[in-house]
C-alpha cells in the first residue's frame, strides 16, 4: 500500500527500512559495528518536504524535516549510505554500515536477523493503526425529509 512496496530494488527496500526503524530498536538488533572508514561523517541537516497542489498537481514546499546522513566504507571496500529521519547520528552510521554489509556475503544472515524483524514489526504497527481506523468506519444515512415523500 505504501510507496516502498512496488517497483523498488532490494537495496531501496532495505535502505527505507533502516531509515524508518527506531534508532534504539536498530541498535538492539545490530549492536556492534565493524571497522569502517567515514567518507562523510554523520551530519544533521534538513530536507524540504514537498507536496503537490490538490494532491496531484504542481509541487510546492510544505516544510522541512530533520535528516541525518552518513557515508562510509568497510574494509571489504563496500560503500554504505545512510539517510535517516531525525537527529540521531548513531542511527545514520548504523544504517550506512548495514547498507554496506547488505551488499556483501553477510546479506542473508542480516536479512534474517535485522531486516525481516524490522519489516515484521513495521507491518504489525501499521496493521494495528489500520485496524483501529477500520473500527471507526461509519455509514451515514440521510433521513427522509418531507419533500422527498
Amino acid at each position: 500500500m505504501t510507496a516502498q512496496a512496488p517497483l523498488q530494488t532490494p537495496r531501496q527496500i532495505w535502505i527505507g527500512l533502516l531509515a524508518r526503524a527506531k534508532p534504539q530498536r536498530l541498535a538492539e538488533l545490530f549492536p556492534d559495528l565493524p571497522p569502517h572508514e567515514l567518507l562523510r561523517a554523520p551530519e544533521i541537516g534538513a530536507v524540504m518536504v514537498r507536496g503537490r497542489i490538490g494532491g496531484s498537481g504542481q509541487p510546492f514546499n510544505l516544510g522541512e524535516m530533520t535528516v541525518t546522513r552518513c557515508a562510509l566504507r568497510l574494509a571489504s571496500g563496500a560503500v554504505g549510505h545512510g539517510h535517516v529521519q531525525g537527529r540521531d547520528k548513531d542511527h545514520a552510521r548504523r544504517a550506512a554500515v548495514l547498507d554496506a554489509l547488505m551488499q556483501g556475503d553477510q546479506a542473508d544472515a542480516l536479512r534474517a536477523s535485522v531486516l525481516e524483524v524490522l519489516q515484521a514489526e513495521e507491518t504489525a504497527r501499521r496493521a494495528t493503526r489500520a485496524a483501529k481506523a477500520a473500527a471507526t468506519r461509519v455509514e451515514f444515512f440521510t433521513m427522509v425529509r418531507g419533500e422527498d415523500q
Partner: protein
Amino acid sequence: MYVAVKGGERAIDNAHAWLAEERRGDPAVADLSLAQIREQLALAVNRVMAEGSLYDPDLAALAIKQSRGDLIEAIFLIRAYRTTLPRLGASRPVETAQMAVIRRISATFKDLPGGQVLGPTFDYTHRLLDFKLAADGEVLPAATAPADMADVPHVTGFLNRDGLIEQQPTGNAVPPDLTREPMELPADRALRLQAITRGDEGFILSMAYSTQRGYGRTHAFVGELRIGTVAVEMDIPELGFAVNIGEVELTECETVNQFKGSKTEPPQFTRGYGLVFGQTERKAIAMSLVDRSLRWAELGEDYTGAPAQDEEFVLMHADNVQATGFLEHIKLPHYVDFQSELELVRRLRAEVFAAQEAAE
C-alpha cells in the same frame, strides 16, 4: 528607530534565572519529560512543527517545554533552530493518494469508495470536561476491526472522471521557496500554499471564517479530509536513485467549491487545497478555504475587497514569528525615539498655550 542601550546585564541574568525557576514551577511537582509532551500533548507538538515549518516531534516538545507552553514562542525557537541546519536537499512530492489513513471523511459523498473513517476525533464528543482525566490515566485499548490496506482514492478523483471539477495543472517545476528568497508578490499558488501552511492557525482560521460569513464567499464543501502518514522519498545523487528517508504524518483537505463558469470554462466545481504537518485539521480546512479565496483572479471572479481575497493582506500577516517580532519589539527600549516625541509634544503644547495667552 532602535538605538543600542547599555547596562542591565545583572538584572537580565537574574530575570532569566528567575524565568528558569518559574518554568520549573513547584519542585514538589514532578518535572515534565519531553516524551510526555510528545506523547500526551501531541496536537501542540503538531502545531509547533507545522508553523515552525520543521517536522521533528522531539524538538517541538523541547521547544514547548522551554517556552512554558507559549506555542508562538516555541514556534520561534524552532524557526531559529532550523536556520542552523544545512539543507540536504528536497524530497520528491509526497503521494497523499498512498497515505496510510487513520481518518478520512467527506462532507459531499456519504458512500464513497474507501469509506468514511472517523479516526481519533473530537467530533461528536459533547465538549464536557472529563473529570476522569483528573483522577487516573487508565485507558482501555481502542477497538479494532478487519482492515484492508489498499490505497484510499481521492474523492476529487471521482468528480474528475465526470469532468465536473477543474483539473490540476501537473508538472514537476521546482517551486519557489520563501525560506530561500524573500517572498515577492504577486505570489504563485505554490508560494501561497507554503506561506499559508506555516502561517498562524488563528489567523488562517479567521481569514477562512470571514469567507464563510460573506467576505469573499466561495461556498466551500469539504470534499475530503484525510489524516495519516506518508513516505518521504528523496533522490540521493551518490546513489543515483531515490530512497525512503522516513515518514511524516499529514492532514490534507480538499474543498469543492461552486463555480458558475466563464467564457472559456464550462460550469464546473473548483478546488481549494490544504496540506499541513501533523494532525492539524482545523488548520488544513482553513488553509483550503483561504487558498480558494485567493484564486479569484485566476478563476475570473470579482474582487470584492474582502480581506481573504487580498493576497498581500493574507500573506504578509500570516506569519506569527514575523508578527510577534514586530509587535513585541515596541516594548524594547525606544528611549531616543520617545525623547524626540516628548520634546515635540512639549513644543507644540507651549505654542498652543502661547497662542491662547496672546488671544486673551
